[in-house]
């Protein structure tokens, strides 16, 4: 029975269904204390003094700490060590952590917070990006944490001859776009439980996607040897990038456990999760694209301005990502990218599903739709002419191994009936009756594409070690244990290791046990981010298993008196392909192998191919492979209310070979859910520096009733870099969804909404403009005069798309 490619249940599904899975908040230890964190009520202020006496005197309070107890700076990126577990001198957003209390119960800890008196000296908050660019205002960070004043990071790169590219163009389109910030909204609030033994061993159970990076941050901030710290990722109720930073509450729980000698648990409230954020950056974008008469791109100039919030987080990488992947879908012979991230006094932005790429993809795919309409071309056929080819490089030195985008477009076009000629009929007004309301409705279809990396090519901190390690141990009873540092955040990465082991050894998936995400027990895997886990842990797992298989085959061959090469693992047996009477049970074979070779175990590791281009910044965007996706959205727009209903989504995804099609489809549907929400309603909004809607009721994301039906198509290229040909599926399918919806709205009502979320009032405003005969558009009108640095000019690689000189 083949396991790879079979639609199997996840190995942890029973635990989830019956409620046996232990999330960090489910855990409890004897003598455990409960901690709460006091958070800043000021968006920007100096801390003058903190008086904790009132809290310390409250019966039931065991310990109170402030920034002085944990002053060492940390941050996920080595270049952005700008956070403190509890602020020492300054607070930078409403919600920044200031002090913490451990008490016998959470209520007492909460009450104690009210007894801590913090004296602030308020500073003018910097709330908008324009305010951040104003150098007369206070700097949020001082010293080396920013490139310049409130500009965290500046990037400028130019590949190929941009001027020549625009000179070759027959049509040049410039426009500005805005993609609003939004948050992950994982159902599980972050929680952490720390325990410190009298002999100096610290253990932290946490809802984290990156135990290895948390491990490093704890060693640094707590000044403990990493060898005495154990970090375990508990069951995780969704991550989406929101649990990939080391967090204040993790360090605080550990510090309090060390001070009190008692276990300490912190579970954040939903409001605190909104404050931790690290979600999608709001990005303002300016796009200039040149094309020939047939639409062939000759040059692309892309500017981004990211609102980073109060801290660095992954922001340097996010900034590069807003420019890196524009080139991996269509052939672009000349490309200039200028990016800038600024600090503001709001919760820090970071990586959310698609990390830095849904924003530029939104702009680019709408931009292409505008160009296609202008040139009178069918948006699908148009795109297909210029898709990148297998085994080539892009102008910015990214390596394309396989690209199934053309087939993805075919699949969604065929299924949806997308095509320019039917537009007139679709966009006729018709009446529709929903819940008593007779609405005036227009329908539209929109297409967009996207691509995402299958794992970052470089680790977060510079090193030459593997990105993923796996240990496999075979027990005499026939059971196989797989140990890997990877964290399953619901995507099924743990199950995947079991499938691979079962496939390789020809045994039942239930005979494989997988132990993950425990820095004491499992070899390092860098974590669940950048869509890296299937490709990297999968390859590491195969490399651990294959030599072990050879040992078993050697022993079996001796017994069966046949060459080892003639044997294979199948259905719990080792069978000679030439003479199937010669066979051994799996358990017999491993007993022979253990007798011959000793304890049966193997280690494997994986490091992505070295592919960085010859320029600073080339580390962001490189990957073993890229996934591709095409999406058609069908919308209905009520022209009197501006309300949009996404009626249906067709989405084709090239994630390489689907190791389990159900899990890949699940990732596609989850991505669609998130993409539709970002397109229509999700939004981090602030009044002053205060989050307007930090709750599941007021922060709008789709309910089950707002979710459209999704038809998923898996386009299975067989990628040479992937385990069994697999690429990524966790993030890429989100990318085409928001622009497909925006393009569908244009198809329906002829107005462009060039920013998210596309709300009813924006649609009505654009319709009013249309009625007045003005540009039928809602979106940012201009891009601020930002001083980007001189670009680094980079010669494109040999096999990148070349600009053909046809003019002059």
């Amino acid at each position, binding site marked *: 029975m083949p396991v790879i490619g079979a639609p199997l249940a996840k190995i942890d599904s029973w635990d989830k269904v019956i409620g046996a899975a232990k999330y960090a908040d489910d855990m409890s230890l004897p003598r455990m204390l409960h901690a709460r964190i006091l958070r800043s*009520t000021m968006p920007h202020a100096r801390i003058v003094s903190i008086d904790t006496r009132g809290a310390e005197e409250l019966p039931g309070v065991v310990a109170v700490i402030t920034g002085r107890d944990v002053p060492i700076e940390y941050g996920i990126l080595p270049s952005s060590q700008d956070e403190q577990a509890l602020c020492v001198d300054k607070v930078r957003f409403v919600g920044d952590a200031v002090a913490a209390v451990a008490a016998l119960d959470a209520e007492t800890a909460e009450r104690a917070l009210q007894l801590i008196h913090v004296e602030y000296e308020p500073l003018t908050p910097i709330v908008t990006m324009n305010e951040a660019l104003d150098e007369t205002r206070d700097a949020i960070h001082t010293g080396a944490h920013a490139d310049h004043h409130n500009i965290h990071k500046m990037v400028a790169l130019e590949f190929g001859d941009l001027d020549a590219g625009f000179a070759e163009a027959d049509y040049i389109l410039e426009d500005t776009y805005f993609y609003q910030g939004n948050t992950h909204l994982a159902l599980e609030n972050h929680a952490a439980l720390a325990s410190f033994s009298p002999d100096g061993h610290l253990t932290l159970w946490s809802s984290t996607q990156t135990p290895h990076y948390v491990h490093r941050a704890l060693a640094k901030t707590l000044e403990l040897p990493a060898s005495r710290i154990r970090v375990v990722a508990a069951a995780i109720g969704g991550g989406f990038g929101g649990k990939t930073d080391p967090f204040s509450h993790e360090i605080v729980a550990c510090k309090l456990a060390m001070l009190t000698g008692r276990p300490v648990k912190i579970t954040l409230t939903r409001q605190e999760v909104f404050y931790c954020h690290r979600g999608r950056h709001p990005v303002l974008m300016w796009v200039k694209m040149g094309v020939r008469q047939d639409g062939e791109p000759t040059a692309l100039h892309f500017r981004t301005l990211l609102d980073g919030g109060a801290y660095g987080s992954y922001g340097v990488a996010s900034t590069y990502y807003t420019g890196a992947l524009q080139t991996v879908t269509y052939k672009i012979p000349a490309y200039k990218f200028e990016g800038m991230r600024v600090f503001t006094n709001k919760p820090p932005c970071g990586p959310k599903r698609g990390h830095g790429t849904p924003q530029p993809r939104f702009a680019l795919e709408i931009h292409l739709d505008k160009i296609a309409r202008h040139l009178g071309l069918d948006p699908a056929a148009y795109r297909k002419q210029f898709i990148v080819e297998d085994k080539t490089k892009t102008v910015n030195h990214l390596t394309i191994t396989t690209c199934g985008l053309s087939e993805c477009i075919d699949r969604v076009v065929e299924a949806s009936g997308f095509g320019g000629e039917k537009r007139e009929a679709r966009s006729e007004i018709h009446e529709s009756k929903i819940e008593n309301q007779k609405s005036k409705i227009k329908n539209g279809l929109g297409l967009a594409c996207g691509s995402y990396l299958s794992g970052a090519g470089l680790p977060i901190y510079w090193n030459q070690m593997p990105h993923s390690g796996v240990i496999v141990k075979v027990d005499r009873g026939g059971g196989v244990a797989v140990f890997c540092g990877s964290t399953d955040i619901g995507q099924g990465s743990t199950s995947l290791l079991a499938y691979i082991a079962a496939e390789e050894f020809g045994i039942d998936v239930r005979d494989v046990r997988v132990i993950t995400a425990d820095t004491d027990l499992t070899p390092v895997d860098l974590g669940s981010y950048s869509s890296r886990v299937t490709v990297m842990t999968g390859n590491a797992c195969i490399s651990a298993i294959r030599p072990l298989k050879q040992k078993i085959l050697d022993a079996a061959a001796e017994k069966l008196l046949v060459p080892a090469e003639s044997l294979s693992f199948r259905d719990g047996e080792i069978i000679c392909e030439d003479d199937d009477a010669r066979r051994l049970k799996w358990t017999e074979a491993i007993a022979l192998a253990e007798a011959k070779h000793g304890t049966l175990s193997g280690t494997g590791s994986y490091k992505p191919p070295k592919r960085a281009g010859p320029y600073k910044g080339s580390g962001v965007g490189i990957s073993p492979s890229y996934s591709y996706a095409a999406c058609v959205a069908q919308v209905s727009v009520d022209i009197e209310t501006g309300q949009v209903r996404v009626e249906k989504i067709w989405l084709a995804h090239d994630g390489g070979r689907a190791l389990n099609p159900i899990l890949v489809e699940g990732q596609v549907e989850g991505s669609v859910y998130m993409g539709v929400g970002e397109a229509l*309603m999700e939004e981090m909004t602030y009044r002053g520096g205060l989050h307007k809607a930090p709750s599941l009721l007021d922060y709008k994301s789709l309910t089950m009733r707002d979710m459209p039906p999704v038809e998923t198509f898996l386009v299975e290229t067989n990628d040479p870099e992937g385990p069994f040909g697999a690429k990524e599926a966790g993030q890429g399918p989100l990318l085409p969804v928001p622009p497909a919806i925006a393009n569908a709205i244009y198809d329906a009502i002829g107005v462009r909404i060039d920013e998210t979320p596309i709300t009813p009032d924006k649609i009505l405003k654009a319709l009013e403009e249309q009625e007045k005969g003005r540009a039928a558009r809602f979106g940012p009108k201009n891009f601020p005069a930002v001083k980007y640095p001189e670009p680094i000019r980079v010669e494109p690689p040999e096999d990148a798309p070349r600009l053909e000189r046809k003019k002059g």
Partner: protein
Amino acid sequence: MLRLPPFEYHAPRSIEQAVNLGAEHGTAAMFVAGGTDLYPNMKRRQFTPQVLIGLNGVEELRGISNGDGITIRAGTTLHQVSNSPLLQTQYPALATAAKLVSTPQLRAMGTLGGNLCLDTRCNYYNQEFSWRQALGFCMKKDGEICMVAPGSSRCWAVSSTDCAPVVVALEGRVRLVSARGERVIAASDLYRDDGIEYLGKARDEIVTEILLPPADGTKSVYLKLRRRDSFDFPILGVAAALRLASNGEIESARIVLGGVGSRPLECVDSARLLIGQKLSHKVIGAAAEAAWRPARPLDNTDSTHSYRKKMARVYVARALGALSEQ
């Protein structure tokens, strides 16, 4: 991980026991029925009553009966109201409004009486304590000024009940009972145009019954504007009720808006334009225009206030359009 503050809980079995407990504990006590509004507010510390008097065990507060008009006892759940065949045929607007409240889980707990007494809402107010502390507190709880209209001497929190505009449009009445006695008032008089003192009932009074007049051919409809198809409170509700003469002329008309002020807003001018008319396209347009003008939503709910105001016209027109087809 927000938790309820500690309180003492009483579970009376009769209205009499309930109101006596109310009299006994005075201002320390609050009544709670389904708890779907009060408990979340208590978790966020909008209310910290020392005593709660739970009405869920009072059997005489449950049920719908038909006689000279329809009597709905206040403890009837929103689920029961929305599924009542009697209401669905006689007063479909009320069944619809109840069906559109929040989620199935909350409708299974929430009651009609509770929905009518729903605390007014404002996104400067319905927040956790620490959030309001960061803001500086508003006058509805712990503060001095109204955050949405800082120059105003009153609170502008928004009446966000789906059922109130309907009950007012249907000319319903409510029975109020306290240890001091009982009285019946027009549903319209249950509300005051003030975000804090939004109810025209005393603190010790319980709404025990909602009394609807005989339907007698009344047509009614309720439309709700909200961002999502579930969970959300109305950011505009339109209840319309009409009675037509045999020649199709309108004899009586009531249009009531929810979600745009601190109390259900009766569109008297709009309704007056309908009397003696037939429901033509033109008449509907004129009535919608008149309904739109007095609506003054402020920027304290989801969506923009200018959009909510614009939608008042569209939704009133659609509500009347729906009635013309009933």
